[in-house]
């Protein structure tokens, strides 16, 4: 098991290196990709701007606390946009043009290769650095202490959020093996990501319950922010640690079930 994990980590490091080399070959694409992500970053910051300019609390959270929420959202978006989103949205193309066959012949996990094959280091760096800076500024302004246990806990909940995000976006994309063209599903589910642009508390009781327990979008970015702000309840803490295991398991089942329906388009 450990040997397999180390092997896949080594392969992932090689894939990242290859992606960086490929991006350096097409530098204009690399630069315009970063410009695009900066544009999205500006849109996310607009929500903070609204909170500050309105000069009032949002559902009990001060504008500085909202900055921590949005900063966390930006940080986890680094994983979403820079690490797995492009792979999930490209599954449809791989299946349609038959290139998925080539991935099946490799002696490593097919799900790993298909969903982590590509990455964009530029997007990842922009979002993660900007997110950390926003969280740090927000915490500094409210005078929050950032000791080692709190930092470690925050990192655990960010990792848990990234894992839940991966699982939640893999589940609908595993339909690709049954209906082939999932581009409209991709566009629709992508628009759900932005629900984390504001603290989950603004969505009301029913919205919060759905977003935490049914489609746990809020576990992705609201939970780390709640933890670091010292506003996390114990049930949320337990759920925040359990959800990645549960949803990664469901995603794995959906993937395996989907693969059984795969018929090669290129063979």
């Amino acid at each position, binding site marked *: 098991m450990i040997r397999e994990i180390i092997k896949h980590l080594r392969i992932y490091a090689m894939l990242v290196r290859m992606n960086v080399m490929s991006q350096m070959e097409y530098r204009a694409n690399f630069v315009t990709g970063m410009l695009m992500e900066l544009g999205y970053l*500006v849109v996310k910051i607009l929500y903070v701007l*609204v909170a500050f*300019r309105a000069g009032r609390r949002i559902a009990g959270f001060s504008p500085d606390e909202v900055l921590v929420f949005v900063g966390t959202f930006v940080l986890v978006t680094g994983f979403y946009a820079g690490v797995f989103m492009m792979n999930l949205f490209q599954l449809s193309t791989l299946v349609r043009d038959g290139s998925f066959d080539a991935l099946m012949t490799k002696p490593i996990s097919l799900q790993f290769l298909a969903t982590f094959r590509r990455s964009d280091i530029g997007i990842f760096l922009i979002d993660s650095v900007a997110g950390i800076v926003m969280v740090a500024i927000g915490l500094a302004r409210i005078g929050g202490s950032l000791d080692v246990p709190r930092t470690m806990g925050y990192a655990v909940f960010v990792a848990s959020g990234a894992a839940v995000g991966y699982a939640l976006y893999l589940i609908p994309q595993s339909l690709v093996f049954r209906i082939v063209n999932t581009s409209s599903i991709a566009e629709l589910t992508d628009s759900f990501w932005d629900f984390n642009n504001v603290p989950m508390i603004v969505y009301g009781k029913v919205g919060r319950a759905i977003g935490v327990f049914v489609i746990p979008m809020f576990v992705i970015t609201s939970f780390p922010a709640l933890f670091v702000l010292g506003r996390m309840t114990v049930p949320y803490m337990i759920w925040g640690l359990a959800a990645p295991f549960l949803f990664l398991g469901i995603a794995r089942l959906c993937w395996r079930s989907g693969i059984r329906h795969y018929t090669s388009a290129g063979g």
Partner: protein
Amino acid sequence: MGDVAAKYGRSFSIGLRGAIEYRLNFAFSILSAVSPVVIQTALWTSLYSPGSGETLFGFTYAQMIAYTVVANLVSRLVRTGFEYELNTDIRTGGLDRYLVKPIGYFGFRLFVFLGTKSTQTGLTLVLLAIATWVLNAVLGIPVSVAAAFAFAASLVVAFLLNFLIFWCVGMAGFWLTEIGFLFEAARIVIITASGGIFPLAVFGPTAQAALNMLPFRFTIQFPTELLCGRIPTGQIAADFALSFVWIGVLTALARALWSAGIRRFAAVGS
């Protein structure tokens, strides 16, 4: 004259047929407008004190919700996409097929775009009618017949301006071989400057005054505010006049960029 009308009528029908063929795609794109509406409505609902009648950024709560709903629909409606086809034509050399045809490429693309928008406008207008009825019933936002006519006229201006803006952005294809995500980056900035995400008032009075003078506002905020009855009657004519000035300026810029770009065009691959 009849020949010209027939040529551009045919271009219009190409766009129309394409839009009918991909109507489900547009329906999904409209559906994806639901998320920002829900997010922003939740945000504004938590920012306004319930039943106080207060204003934020010059909007009452009801006006802000109406703005959020209408602006999201309008931004989906005026959205372009032809710039990617334009770039493909330049990059692959396919543009030369159009250069030898007895029709201007600019006019061809414009009428295809308008044809595409004609069916989408029908669907969006139905949704807008439902939305305004609901907004009126729930929040008491009335829409007068005059406002509806002014909105329809402003939509034509918005289509033309957005076409010209993205035509000018698309001309970058003559100079850059790798456009990559440039169009998407430009689209995000332009939507933000158009009031497509939040009203321009959130940027503060100075930035708002500057953005009001630019063409972007006329693609989303202007039609939205006209429909919501937020623009004083005396101001409407002046705003339309400014939008016409921008149509003139951008047309001249589009022609200049095309002239400069076409001289660099090498028809690679054809």
